[in-house]
């Protein structure tokens, strides 16, 4: 039990998927302009990430490995993710149209979110059990959401500040991300 809790904390904070593993940067930069879209995006990504992790884990364990066709892993995993995103897109369009237009192109772009494919691959690489995989994926999704929402808050603030001339726009955004990443490094050592 303690081990699972630490796994969750590790995935969400210590090895934060965005600030420390560098996965999921594109949506991180693109959707963090307002906290509302950030929340919507985090929930969509969390859903896709967790479900695709489960499906890809099962397919890898019960199909790819037994048949020794692990080299098909990349193709199979990305197809699972693409289909899932298509499905989520349809559901959100019907049920939450404002969110659908708020997320815009970033919703289908969850397919190319390195975080989603990355987690599916890491689950296999770290040789997790089913429960560990669930906790890891969920923890990662939580970490992604946390980083995204924090960052959106920061960006909303800086919009009203004076930024040095050549740093306006993307440069200052990256500097901010760097400082946030530095802050998250403080979590290292929490998981013993």
């Amino acid at each position, binding site marked *: 039990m303690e081990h699972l809790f630490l796994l969750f904390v590790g995935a969400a904070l210590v090895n934060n998927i965005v600030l420390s593993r560098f996965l999921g940067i594109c949506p991180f930069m693109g959707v963090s302009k307002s906290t509302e879209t950030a929340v919507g995006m985090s929930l969509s990504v969390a859903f896709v990430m967790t479900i695709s992790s489960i499906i890809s884990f099962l397919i890898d364990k019960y199909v790819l490995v037994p048949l020794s066709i692990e080299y098909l892993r990349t193709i199979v995993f990305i197809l699972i993710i693409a289909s899932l995103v298509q499905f989520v897109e349809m559901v959100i369009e019907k049920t939450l149209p404002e969110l659908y237009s708020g997320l815009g192109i970033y919703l289908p772009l969850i397919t190319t979110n390195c975080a989603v*494919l990355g987690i599916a691959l890491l689950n296999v690489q770290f040789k997790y059990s089913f429960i560990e995989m669930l906790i890891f994926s969920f923890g990662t999704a939580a970490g992604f959401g946390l980083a995204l929402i924090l960052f959106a808050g920061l960006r909303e603030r800086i919009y009203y500040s004076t930024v040095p001339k050549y740093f306006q726009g993307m440069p200052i955004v990256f500097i901010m991300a760097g400082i946030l990443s530095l802050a998250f490094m403080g979590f290292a050592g929490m998981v013993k």
Partner: protein
Amino acid sequence: MVKNIIKDGLYSNNAIFKQMLGLCPTLAVTTSAVNALGMGLATTAVLTGSNLVISLIARYIPKNVRIPAYIVIIACFVTIIDQMMKANFYSLHKVLGIFIPLIVVNCIVLGRAEAFASKNTPLYSLIDGLSVGIGFTIALFILGSFREIIGAGTFFNISVMLSSYNPLLIAVMPPGAFLFLGFLFAGKQFIDSRIKGEK
């Protein structure tokens, strides 16, 4: 036309500095010049291959399934490159880790397929793939070299700083990646405005 394609890919529409795509590997893999170069070249190989194949069969693919179709083709190239690297460049492959399969979700590759390869001839698409890829590789290499020299005091694993130099470790750690890239972007904006000012 060809000249423009090359110029765009390498500089004016540079994947990282202008379009800001492919950021995940940019931050993760540029801890050393060698890694940056390896990643850039692998991506270039995939980009060139997928651009070529996609431009050859784009007209036969129905519009509504074109994205999944492109992804499968790209994933195929990525896996082939992954296997070739594991067989011939084992230690580099180990260092780059999951970022090789992650080329499949590198927005640059899918972006070029959609924006260029699906609408142009195979020859132009091939050249575009090469140019954008090499432009990407150059950008990665610049960042990787900076981070390695400042963060580890070496370049291609050869010591280049005075022995009294205490490496600025943060350069090769996650925060450093963000900070360095931020400074490089600022630098580019500075250069761009100087060029515009002089014109």
